[in-house]
């Protein structure tokens, strides 16, 4: 039965939860499909995550391999294919807890970087799991900066082979998933040398383990890099190469080739590589950042409606912690952000699809904008969602720290997203480079891409709000965000120019402005997010109460951003001190309004209890019973601890009493 404290929250919803879910899914038909996939996966015991919190690294890895293998069978049984509409829901259903994710990256890089012959040779082997692939780029001493990689591949004309080496310890491949224990092959990125000349980084297919007994191939040293904050189920690995020979045909050669005599030939544009990065960054936003935040919000908000603490009114029952303003101020902005980023994901996806169509027509014009937006949003969204998950964790008091709450593992997993696929600070600086360039272009009247035309249009003014209700007009706050973005970008551009004109070298000037540049890039992304949220709300049909609640969330997201960064809005007087007090007042009013729909708003994310895997966040709100039951399953409770008999008893009883 449902805890009455949760049931009562649901009775007063101002909108239809089912309709909101369908709308978030892009249609009721999608909802139905998603639920069918989730149901099929969750009722299969192999995919159970029931004991996950009690398992060791070895057990987690084994379970992930088992699930990955079983998933192939399952997909076959269910008639799902990788191209089918079900595919995107499978990952959600298994909660990422499977091995061989890098195997897919291996296949994608062969398809993107390989010639037709190479694709014909390797892809069938990989798709039938005759080999297991990985993708070895990052080295112990080198990450984001690809040109710095040290692994070498020297072409030997006499044997028609490349000889691969790890010249020193910092050049060891480090971190690639699936490589520590599973992979038989990997794409190794190495500096190519032909006749003593270095041609830069190129990809090579290298076999690392025997296809018969899985032992390491000669010249290969590989293993697992040891425990991490999370991803216990993935065997992130290291790889050292000692005079490993691979045939000439193993260099992926769609874009460049070494001919038998050692002639190096380059063909076609490599710009498509940028497109790959862009697609990966956009694709991770939803699954790796927004979904975990939605889950964390679901857990924390449901628990906050069940947990009672202290009294708000004398003589009454202890209050739900969700009724405390400070608790609302922690959780509700995170909920609004989860919605905001869900919509930004739609926005990016649309932009990406458009860009993809252009690129297929060999038009690369949209690439710089796409690249800048995907970098900036990857950084902004992962950072925001990470801190959001942590806020949810800490909003659950002591119980949040129990692994059984589900929150610690959501947190330790999502934080990795701030680093992988491009460290966030570096990504923001890439976006900033684009913004500065566009700003310069715009100020000399040259055309700029659509997302940055505002840089040319804006004029310095003051905010026109007269009272706190004015701050519930999207025009008012969107303009404020736009103003701040323009101000930060233009002032940084001016500073850069000043420095350069005063004789500072360009790269030094850049480094001296990077703190501001990163801030400007964030402001740009924040502005686009607010604007996109407001536009999304505008397009909703006013029926079913959805538009109204989404409008509240949009207002909350926008005002929370101003409330938490008052300085940048006050700095040049765009918003006055008195107006800032109106922002605060409106913002705090919204908390109380959204509070009423908080539980239905997380219910609409439609996570099953199994996918939340949380003793605090289940739909029925039977928090304490579940916590007690789950704790008893802990291996630490299965026997009397050996430590007592082994250490405590003999040592203390006998020896201490003599002291």
């Amino acid at each position, binding site marked *: 039965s449902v805890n009455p404290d949760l049931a009562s929250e649901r009775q007063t919803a101002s909108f239809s939860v089912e309709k909101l879910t369908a709308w978030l899914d892009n249609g009721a038909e999608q909802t139905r499909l998603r639920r069918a996939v989730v149901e099929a996966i969750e009722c299969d015991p192999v995919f159970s995550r029931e004991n996950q919190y009690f398992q060791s690294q070895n057990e987690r890895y084994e379970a992930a391999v088992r699930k990955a293998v079983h998933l192939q069978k399952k997909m076959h049984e269910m008639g799902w294919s990788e191209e089918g509409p079900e595919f995107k829901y499978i990952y959600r259903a298994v909660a990422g807890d499977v091995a061989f994710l890098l195997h897919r990256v291996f296949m994608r890089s062969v398809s993107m970087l390989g010639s037709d012959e190479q694709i014909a040779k390797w892809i069938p082997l990989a798709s039938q799991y005759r080999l297991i692939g990985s993708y070895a780029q990052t080295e112990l001493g080198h*990450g984001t900066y690809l040109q710095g990689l040290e692994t070498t591949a020297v072409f030997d004309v006499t044997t028609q082979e490349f000889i691969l080496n790890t010249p020193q310890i910092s050049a060891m491949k480090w971190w690639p998933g699936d490589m520590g224990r599973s992979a038989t092959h990997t794409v190794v990125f190495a500096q190519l040398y032909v006749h003593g000349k270095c041609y830069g980084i190129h990809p090579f297919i290298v076999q690392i383990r025997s296809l018969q007994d899985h032992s390491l191939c000669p010249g290969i040293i590989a293993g697992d890099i040891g425990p991490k904050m999370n991803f216990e189920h993935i065997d992130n690995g290291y790889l050292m190469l000692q005079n490993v020979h691979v045939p000439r045909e193993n260099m992926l050669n769609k874009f460049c080739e070494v001919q038998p005599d050692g002639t190096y030939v380059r063909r076609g544009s490599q710009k498509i590589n940028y497109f790959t990065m862009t697609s990966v960054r956009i694709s991770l936003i939803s699954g790796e950042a927004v979904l975990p935040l939605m889950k964390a919000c679901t857990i924390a908000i449901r628990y906050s409606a069940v947990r009672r603490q202290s009294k708000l009114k004398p003589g009454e029952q202890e209050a739900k912690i969700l009724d405390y303003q400070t608790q609302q101020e922690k959780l509700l902005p995170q909920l609004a952000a989860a919605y905001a980023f869900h919509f930004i994901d739609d926005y990016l996806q649309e932009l990406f699809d458009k860009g993809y169509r252009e690129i297929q027509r060999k038009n690369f014009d949209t690439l710089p904008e796409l690249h800048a937006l995907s970098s900036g949003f990857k950084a902004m969204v992962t950072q925001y969602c990470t801190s959001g998950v942590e806020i949810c964790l800490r909003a659950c008091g002591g119980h949040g720290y129990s692994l059984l709450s589900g929150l610690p593992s959501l947190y330790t997993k999502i934080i990795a997203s701030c680093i992988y696929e491009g460290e966030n600070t570096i990504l923001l600086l890439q976006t900033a480079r684009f913004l500065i360039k566009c700003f310069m272009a715009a100020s000399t009247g040259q055309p700029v891409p659509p997302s940055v035309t505002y840089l040319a249009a804006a004029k310095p003014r003051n905010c026109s709000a007269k009272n706190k209700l004015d701050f519930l007009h999207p025009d008012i706050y969107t303009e404020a965000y736009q103003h701040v973005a323009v101000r930060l970008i233009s002032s940084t551009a001016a500073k850069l120019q000043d420095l350069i004109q005063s004789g500072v070298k360009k790269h030094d000037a850049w480094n001296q402005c990077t703190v501001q540049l990163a801030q400007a890039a964030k402001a740009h992304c924040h502005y686009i997010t607010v604007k996109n949220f407001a536009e999304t709300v505008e397009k909703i049909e006013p029926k079913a109460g959805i538009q109204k609640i989404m409008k509240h969330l949009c207002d909350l997201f926008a005002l929370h951003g101003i409330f938490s960064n008052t300085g940048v809005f006050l700095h040049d007087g765009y918003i006055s001190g008195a107006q800032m007090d109106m922002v605060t007042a409106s913002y705090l009013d919204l908390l109380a309004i959204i509070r009423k729909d908080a539980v239905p708003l997380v219910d609409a994310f439609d996570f099953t209890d199994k996918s939340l895997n949380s003793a605090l966040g289940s739909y029925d709100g039977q928090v304490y019973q579940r916590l007690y039951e789950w704790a008893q399953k802990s291996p630490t409770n299965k026997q009397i601890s050996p430590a007592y008999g082994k250490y405590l008893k003999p040592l203390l009883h006998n020896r201490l009493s003599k002291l």
Partner: protein
Amino acid sequence: MNADLRRERAAATFQTELLTHILDGGAERTRRRKEIETLVLNDPDFQHEDLNFLSRSQRYEQAIRKSALMVMKLREYGIADPEEIYWFKSFVHRGRPEPLDLHLGMFLPTLLTQATPEQQDRFFMPAWNLEIIGTYAQTEMGHGTHLRGLETTATYDPATQEFILNSPTVTSIKWWPGGLGKTSNHAIVLAQLYTQGQCKGLHAFIVPIRQLGTHEPLPGITVGDIGPKFGYDEMDNGYLKMDNFRIPRENMLMKYAQVEPDGTYVKPVSDKLTYGTMVFIRSLIVGDSARSLSRACTIAIRYSAVRHQSELKPGEPEPQILDYQTQQYKLFPLLATAYAFHFVGAYIKDTYRRISGDINAGDLSELPELHALTAGLKAFTSWTANAGIEECRMACGGHGYSRCSGIPDIYVTFTPSCTYEGENTVMMLQTARFLVKSYTQVSSGQRVTGMVSYLNDLSSQRIQPQHVAARAVTVRINDPASLVEAYKARAARLVEAAAKNLQAELNHRKTKEDAWNRTSVDLVRASEAHCHYVVVKLFTAKLAEVSNAAVRAVLTELCLLYALHGISKNTGDFLQAGILTGAQITQVNQRVKELLAVIRRNAVALVDAFDFNDIYLGSVLGRYDGNVYENMFEWAKKSPLNKTEVHESFHKHLKPMQAKL
């Protein structure tokens, strides 16, 4: 030693030992600390495998083994000074919690302060000799900070002269106490006392929970471990459920309140004394914030001096990542914060020591302010350090995420301090209550003293005709004393705003509680501003005590960075109150960046001065010698997944699949 680190150390402008002495509180104390450190770290009994490779059960087992030895050796060496015991314990457990924490830190002290002489005779020596191992069971599954909400009952039965203990609901199960799950055989249980049909509120009872000798739970007792957590693997946090469990009347701690044989309840004289313990424990958390953040900074800054990445100047070798402005901007303000918190922690400890004599003599006059201040500072420093540790980890890129960096462990060990000993938001609101009370006193013409005395100025200012925004403090951004004034003005403004908003709500709302709740976001901000002011003030005050010019110079740079960075992160408050203009803010931002470049040359020396031994630091990235990569490889080879060359899952899952497809 790694050449980069050697160069960094050679370029420092001050002697690191001198700064270490300041942090320790004198050269003699540094010597003694290192003596104890050597004693522990060279003791083969305290060696073990890297904990990162052990299961939770194994980690618990190692911890209990070391704890048992620790208690023995402390007595063998005659170490009795609390600070020295603290050092010894930190080195044994390398800064981690351990299963006897609650026995040593709560059970024994509670016996000393709340047990009658007879009870001390019965329990103290057995507990001192660890025949009795106790814990302190207060928190329940459904009840934390709000003590009056606890549900466990202790009902007096005059017929047998016993208390009957019960956990009437699931939510009343004791949950979280450390050492309860597996280690303890006794617990001090907090329960609602019922006698003669009346509830007399919360009282403490000594409850045996496991059979001496066999260690099996006693009949009527259900006890166990609450399962895996975010860190704290060494600690057996436990649950305890009692069903009609009887204990003799003499097991209620009766130094203050008493229940007589016939059930007559005798009230305690005063309950303010418990404040003292809370102040003490919260002051420890402030010190802990400083230490944990210092450890994370040491790791991140040393690693940033060793790690090379990308290109700053075309054609030149990859620079140390510490040369990037964005990296400095992440790390140096945290370094300054770590120093600031060290000095704050020392200040609270000294103040507590100074007035604890008065407390014992019954003079509690200074206690309310200190209590309010430590509540806020506990929250302020633990929140800041918590976020700072994560920033340090992120600043280490991918490798920070590996357990070999040591930062994940520092984080999970530290982060619960945002919740335990008073949830931080609740703490901030306690401080706010004191601030509002002080403000109300000032408004009614009384003067207030101590850290809140700046509120006295508010009333005089209000008489002046100018607009609030016009009362500009002339801020000199290179003068710490002037920045203290700026922070003071900000705190005053936010306290005033919160108090006024509260008053406005009170005029509209039905109840005080409702008005308070609707102002609580403002109130928390006011408390934060107050704490921030106190930290800047104490850091600035510390500078005058430093006699060595070179050390004072570098600490002054850090102090300025701390204060200016704080302004640049909270510009809105300073702008809105008219304390600083937009142009001044631009100057502040610029000055912060200049200071980053100035501090850069001393960054490694400044973390060296924290003087963490490599074993205690527990980080491959933060090693003193900087030989990071070789040692990461050595570390990884020991990973449990690498025990066999071919993992068993190959035979179990992979091979059969390949055969089928």
